[in-house]
């Protein structure tokens, strides 16, 4: 903030230029260029049209439109209520609260990595790594039965993949219904409590105590909850891929 004010005192130049012609000219040229590109693309590549709709014949695999394949890929690791409804809601809310949880006054209106390292890294984890990579996996690496195939591999609809996933409470030896549910709930709560504590320590370590005071409890709570929830996805992916864990929490109503 102080630096921004410092700047405002030192650099008082009117760097404004007329929209017409300077901006309009650029817009016009880019429009022409993009329209030519779109026309060529449309002349060369036809939009797909398959056989008529047939509700009685389900294709294998059935894929959602490509921009939703990240969500469909998440269905491998979480149940639909979470991967398809709760997480997307958190993504939208999370995007909306960004301007309010980011109180770093620096980096407003210019490119900088140094002044907003952690903010940018968080965005890259969420957008480039989790969202875009899952879309790429869902689009190019998933075949019949939603099994993994290399893009150059033939899709074998009879590929046999052993289902060896086990619930975590079962692995640790719990057989009782309620003990399993209680243990799972405990683990999920523990994940949030421990992660929140780690997040708190981490923020103080990289940003300092003074920042935490300015940031406030509400901003910290929202940010840490959303961040920990986001990191929950790669955590579950890791548990599934490495330890074949199906669910961490199993209850009659919902599983995580």
């Amino acid at each position, binding site marked *: 903030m102080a630096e921004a004010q410092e700047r405002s005192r030192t650099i008082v130049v009117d760097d*404004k230029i007329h929209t017409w012609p300077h901006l309009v000219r650029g817009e016009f040229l880019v429009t022409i260029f993009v329209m030519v590109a779109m026309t060529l693309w449309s002349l060369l590549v036809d939009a797909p*049209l398959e056989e008529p709709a047939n509700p009685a014949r389900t294709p294998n695999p059935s894929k959602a439109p490509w921009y939703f394949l990240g969500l469909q890929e998440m269905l491998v690791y979480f149940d639909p*209520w979470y991967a398809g409804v709760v997480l997307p809601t958190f993504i939208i809310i999370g995007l909306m609260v960004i301007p309010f949880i980011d109180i770093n006054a620096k980096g*407003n209106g210019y490119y900088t990595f140094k002044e907003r390292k952690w903010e940018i890294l968080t965005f890259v984890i969420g957008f480039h790594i989790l969202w875009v990579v899952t879309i790429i996996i869902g689009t190019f690496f998933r075949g019949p039965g939603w099994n993994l195939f290399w893009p150059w591999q033939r899709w074998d609809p009879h590929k046999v993949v052993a289902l060896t996933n086990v619930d975590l409470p079962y692995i640790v030896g719990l057989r009782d219904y309620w003990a399993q549910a209680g243990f799972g709930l405990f683990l999920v709560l523990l994940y949030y409590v421990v992660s929140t504590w780690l997040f708190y320590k981490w923020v103080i370590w990289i940003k300092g105590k003074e920042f935490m005071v300015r940031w406030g409890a509400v901003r910290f709570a929202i940010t840490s909850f959303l961040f920990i929830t986001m990191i929950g996805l790669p955590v579950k992916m890791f548990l599934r891929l490495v330890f074949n864990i199906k669910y961490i929490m199993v209850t009659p109503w919902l599983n995580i």
Partner: protein
Amino acid sequence: MINLEQIKKDIVESQVWKSIFRHGYEDTPRNRVLMVTGNVWMHLHPAKVRRHAVRMRFTWCMGGLTFLMFLLTVVTGIYLMFYYRPVPQYAYADMKYLEFDMPFGMLMRNMHRWAAHAMVIFVWLHMFRVFLTGSYKPPREFNWIVGVLLLVLTLLLSFTGYLLPWDQLAIWAVTVGSNMARATPLLGHEGPFAEFVGANPIYDARAFLFGGGDIGPHTLLRFYILHCIFIPLVASLLMAVHFWRIRRDGFSGPPL
């Protein structure tokens, strides 16, 4: 001898001409401003902009190109609407008709589809650019929220349009995409706690979206109206707010 100068003067100074064009074309600072403020379309811009804010390496042109893709889908979409009937008996046949019999039908359909895909990519890149330049920081927090809503609407526009060809790709992609809705906690019949609300296959969140328990004629009509009227209308209103707020809050850039 025809006096061209005199004819030009007569036209340009006529009451009709002056009622349409309020200013001359001489390249004067006054006319440059009037070109923008005196024209409803150009009026989207401020009369003057910060020099760095029009640079392509700052904006990547992504916001403008997203809008261009929207306009392109509107124009090609209206063309397609002349030949398409949102009824299962006709929808697929109309697609074939469009592709093989209509002048420029295939080109318009290709352009509509590719522009829709491009719009999704451009809007994501626009969000990434705005994040990188910190352009959501005060005073532009609210416009970022409007932008997130527009991002969601872009995905919904694309998704609702996906069903309209009424081929295998369309109904199964939409089936997979919408199956999430039936897992909505409380409101979807397969979601957690649905039994407490009384959600069932023909009375839950997905049925509301589909207009019935399964994809059928009602769904096609519903998605058609959402795609052609409702969502474009809402998106247009939000775009008006989005563009207006850019002007009000100033094009982002380092503080002067």
